[in-house]
């Protein structure tokens, strides 16, 4: 579960990214003994636990739609800074060794955000953003993905309009997302107690600053960065033009597809797990000698006159 740790500065794939797994340059990891050795000196040495992964294309590959200059700053400065800050904030704390997604969940802290959240979530968000685009992107999806889009939005055109609108109306900095929502209510962190096939839906959501749909237990499928730094060099104030360009020229529907398949698989796995746990509950022995806790629980709701506590 822990991200691979490596002291080497050349890029290596360390982020478990949801869905799309890209071919990575194979890289020899440091031997475990060496890693432990380095940890002892952690007071002066920042162990590079997370590394800045390059986009799956060269920095000029998205031209003329997204300039090389933008990629140089956006990836080379902004994204890099988030990763560096993340490492500084994580080293020597309980967060060290956790996967990036776990750090995000822990530091989101149900909305009472802890300091490392911004760095962690933004590191993840930007990885996800680069992988959401490709040279020669845009166009229309096909297959299952298109079917689901048409089912949940009426048509691909209406989906596009809604996605563009979400991206254009996110006040301040943030992101717009297409996500797969499986058996979760449309309210943050609320689990649907009566899940059904109809709950497994595609949704469009927008989020401020560093927040992403992982914190609501959705599966992100596609994102567009609408922080001003994402488009200011190329489009200045014309956010709407940037968004249109993104949809028409850059979206990688292959990536979205792969993520959807992964999301459906994970959702199915989770359902099976929940079924299994439910069945285990039903068959649990109800012997009085064994489990006082269970009986106490029942009594609390049965008899309101009795306010005696534990037995």
């Amino acid at each position, binding site marked *: 579960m822990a991200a691979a740790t490596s002291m080497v500065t050349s890029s290596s794939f360390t982020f478990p990214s949801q869905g799309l797994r890209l071919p990575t340059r194979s890289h020899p990891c440091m031997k475990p003994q060496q890693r432990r050795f380095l940890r002892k000196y952690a007071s002066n040495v920042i162990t590079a636990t997370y590394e800045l992964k390059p986009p799956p294309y060269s920095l000029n590959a998205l031209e003329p739609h997204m300039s090389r200059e933008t990629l140089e*700053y956006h990836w080379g*400065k*902004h994204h890099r*800074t988030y990763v560096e800050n993340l490492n500084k904030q994580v080293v020597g704390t309980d967060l060290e060794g956790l996967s990036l997604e776990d750090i995000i969940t822990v530091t989101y802290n149900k909305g009472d955000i802890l300091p490392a959240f*911004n760095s962690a979530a933004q590191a993840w968000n930007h990885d996800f953003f680069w992988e959401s685009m490709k040279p020669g992107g845009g166009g229309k999806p096909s297959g299952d993905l298109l079917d689901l889009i048409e089912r949940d939005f009426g048509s691909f055109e209406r989906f596009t309009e809604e996605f563009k609108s979400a991206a254009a109306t996110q*006040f*301040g*900095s*943030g992101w717009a997302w297409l996500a797969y929502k499986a058996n979760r209510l449309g309210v943050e962190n609320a689990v649907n107690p009566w899940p059904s096939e109809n709950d497994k839906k595609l949704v469009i959501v927008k989020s*401020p*600053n*560093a927040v992403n749909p992982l914190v609501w237990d959705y599966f992100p499928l596609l994102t567009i960065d609408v*922080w*001003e*730094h994402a488009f*200011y*060099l190329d489009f*200045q*104030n014309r956010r709407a033009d940037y968004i249109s360009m993104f949809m028409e020229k850059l979206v990688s529907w292959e990536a979205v597809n792969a993520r959807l398949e992964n999301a459906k698989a994970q959702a199915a796995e989770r359902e099976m797990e929940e079924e299994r746990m439910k069945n285990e509950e039903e068959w649990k022995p109800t012997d009085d000698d064994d489990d006082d806790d269970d009986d106490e629980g029942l009594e609390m709701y049965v008899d309101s006159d009795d306010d005696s506590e534990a037995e």
Partner: protein
Amino acid sequence: MALRSLATRKTLALGLNSTRLTQSRALQTFSLPDLPYDYGALEPAISGEIMQLHHQKHHQTYITNYNKALEQLQEAIQKGDSSTVVKLQTAIKFNGGGHINHSIFWNNLAPIREGGGEPPKGSLGWAIDTNFGSLESLVQKINAEGAALQGSGWVWLGLDKELKKLVVETTANQDPLVTKRPHLVPLLGIDVWEHAYYLQYKNVRPDYLKNIWKVINWKYASGVYEKESA
């Protein structure tokens, strides 16, 4: 020009313009205030390109959308459409806030030859020393808080009229300072939205914050302070 618009407003108020008879009172709309200096006058601290975009595009857009929201609000109020009235609140706070904040901001800046960068004297200078120790210390605090602000927002030097002291505060997005605490009066605000500095300073917001002090108009802040602390 001013006379003509005055006459129009009066006409509207009297209901003489027939198309306005359905509205019981005229809606005050807002327009882009002129900058008291040329776009290039704040260079090299802030580039002319940024000033022009910031003023003509960003501020203008807030005003346009603010006016639109107010019109919709008036209509909704007259119809008793509570759902729409409440729904419009975010747009009003955002766009109205954007108009308020930027109007203050243009006054907070001045070219060097017109006093930009000159330290505050008089009662504000004294109040800064009392509250923060020194001007340098205040600048450091504002820069630290401005740099640390995640996302978009503003960093302010404000007067807390209730507690009778100067404070440094940040607000998110376009929230005006008064949304932080009702007795806060903005003396000086620095826009730390990326559009305020990106073309020139790129990701290095701290450099923008360091340089903007060269064109800060302390005379305006002093004027507001003296008026509000009287």
